[in-house]
């Protein structure tokens, strides 16, 4: 696989991966930003950030990394993340998916 094939492969995977992150976000919100749902949301954001960078999608990685930081802070402090910032990151990722 060359760089372009890697990029293309991940572009095809991105809709499903983002949907998984969005579902985890809904679950974390429903759980009051606590416990395992929040940890799962954080881990999926972390994975998306890493995969985006590995597969040549830095814009995906940057947005996911921002989301990961918000959630990491929530885990560390026990305080809910700023929802507008969480939503902004998710919307940015959704825009990237829809732009193709």
């Amino acid at each position, binding site marked *: *696989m060359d760089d372009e094939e*890697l990029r293309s*492969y*991940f572009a095809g*995977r991105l809709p499903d*991966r983002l949907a998984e992150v969005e579902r985890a976000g809904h679950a974390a919100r429903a759980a009051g930003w606590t416990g395992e749902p929040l940890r*799962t949301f954080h*881990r999926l954001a*972390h*994975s998306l*950030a*890493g*995969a985006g*960078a*590995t*597969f040549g999608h830095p814009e995906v*990685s940057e947005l996911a990394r921002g989301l990961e930081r918000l959630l990491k802070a929530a885990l560390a402090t026990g305080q809910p993340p700023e929802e507008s910032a969480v939503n902004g990151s998710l919307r940015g990722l959704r825009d990237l998916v829809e732009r193709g």
Partner: protein
Amino acid sequence: MPRYEPLCYEVGPMSPPGPRRILFVEDDPDIRMVATMALEAVGGFSVAACGSGMEAVSRFDEVAPDLVLLDVMMPGMDGPETLAALRRLPGGGIPVIFMTARVQANEIAGYREMGAVDVIAKPFDPMTLSETVREIWRSLQPEA
């Protein structure tokens, strides 16, 4: 200790070429796919890929790896917990390399204290991953 053929470097200057069989543990399916492909196609290694620490522990004996590449952040058993579990298995003292995005100096020192021989930073370049593994492997071999 890593397994190698001692005569290889008793009779010549070349160090052992690298691990033959790698146990690769990574929960992200896309990263698992690309790294496995890169390690096999570019590096010529034999790779057994596992999606969790639990799977790695259960398959360790069957795979009999020379080296373990281990993601740090995983659900269930994370990398450090998996490393600790592997160390309790017969033959579980083989080199383990962590793969993680968290590579600040204090974090790397922590991984080494846990028993990892080295750390490969994420994101990694699939084309150079095998050479990085080989370099780490060479660094572990005794001087000829």
